[in-house]
């Protein structure tokens, strides 16, 4: 049986890993290489690495850095931030990324998703969607949450899946870093509309939050950052908890 996945997220900015709240008030939490070595030792299911300022600063991905990190990473690695072309994707895969996460460019130039899927396969295309709640509705934001687009997340995710996206990394901006739990309604709306896996992100603070996202939220995987960086909770203990509650996990 396919197992649910727990994925630590590493956010990278100005040469170090950071953690924020609501995509803001970033604080440094140490070296990327060190974090990858620790997660490698702990045999986590998968790792997400996002360079959160690349697009805003108009930079391309830091291929050399990814090359170094991937050399130490014997688990699946998704890399995002600053990806704008087929060539960026090719170079990232070539230095050891298993999947790429595309966010801003997916809105600006959706055809890129089709092109990447066609050339490298759907399995390596993760479309990362950041969602902000405005009044009673949700809208997709780009450029690390700084630009609102007015686009509906369910419609956008559906279009991305049609174009060939293999997975959706769905982040609630309001919940990000709060450790108050995922936006379950958002997770469920998008998961139910799609034939591809959704990775819930933004807000995890407890094992119970994982359980909720995977059951009520219908997500296929859960991502968490603050919870693993700032609390005693670990991916392994999370999996034991989920196992006791009857979900399939890899132990």
């Amino acid at each position, binding site marked *: 049986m396919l197992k649910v996945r727990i994925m630590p997220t590493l956010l990278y900015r100005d040469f170090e890993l950071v953690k924020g709240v609501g995509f803001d008030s970033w604080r440094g939490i140490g070296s990327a290489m060190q974090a990858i070595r620790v997660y490698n030792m702990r045999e986590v299911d998968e790792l997400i690495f996002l360079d959160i300022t690349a697009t805003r600063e108009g930079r391309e991905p830091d291929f050399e850095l990814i090359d170094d990190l991937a050399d130490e990473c014997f688990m699946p690695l998704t890399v995002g931030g600053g990806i704008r072309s087929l060539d960026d994707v090719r170079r990232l895969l070539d230095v050891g990324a298993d999947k790429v996460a595309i966010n801003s460019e997916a809105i600006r130039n959706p055809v890129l998703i089709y092109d990447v899927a066609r050339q490298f396969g759907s*399995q390596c295309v993760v479309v990362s969607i950041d969602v902000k709640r405005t009044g009673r509705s949700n809208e997709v934001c780009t450029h690390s949450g700084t630009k609102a687009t007015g686009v509906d997340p369910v419609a956008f995710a559906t279009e991305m899946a049609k174009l060939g996206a293999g997975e959706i990394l769905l982040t609630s901006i309001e919940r990000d870093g709060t450790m108050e739990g995922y936006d379950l309604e958002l997770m469920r709306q998008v998961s139910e509309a799609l034939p591809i896996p959704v990775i819930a992100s933004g807000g995890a603070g407890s094992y119970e939050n994982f359980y909720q996202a995977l059951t009520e939220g219908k997500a296929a995987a859960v991502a968490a950052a603050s919870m693993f960086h700032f609390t005693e909770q670990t991916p392994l203990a999370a999996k034991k908890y989920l196992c006791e509650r009857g979900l399939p996990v890899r132990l």
Partner: protein
Amino acid sequence: MKKVAILEYGMGNIDSVFRAVEECGANPVRTCDAAEIRDADCIILPGVGAFGDAIQKIRERRLDEIVAERVLDRGIPFLGICLGMQLLADKSHEFGEHRGLGWIRGEVVRLCPDNLSVLIPHVGWNEVHPQFDSPLLQGIRLGKDFYFVHSYHFICAKKENQLATTPYCGGFTSVIGEKNIFGVQFHPEKSQRVGFQLLRNFLAL
């Protein structure tokens, strides 16, 4: 130290395979050069991406002929990973119909969901259940989880080539083998301890 030729033909994350082989104590080289391939003790064909592009790139570089001479004529061990496994088939139905290497009889078709909640691509950790004894799977506990990420799967024409299966979409073939030729649908290089065990088994052949 064993020399391992990791075939480089412009299709995806060769670096992780290279690093994993290195960690397993062998001496990998990324190559599409005939002399280097002839010099290697075993050959790994990695690959992510679309079947059609991949087989075209392999033929353009004449890798099929160079590798066939070593693997089919000389019998040196060969391992195809993910798309590299699928390329062993007679043909694939991914975006049209493409002729494969044809070294293990079978066809590659899209995974077909057996109920509405099954998602494609098949992404994540899933069990591998051996069907036959194989040196490749030595010492790996029954039903251990490996990392998968794919939308297509290999259907063997001959039952005895199906070395292991995985329970998804009604069950599909996750390890194939015939004599010195092997293929795995999952990524041993990304499956941590158990993946390294499989790679070491291959390197010991």
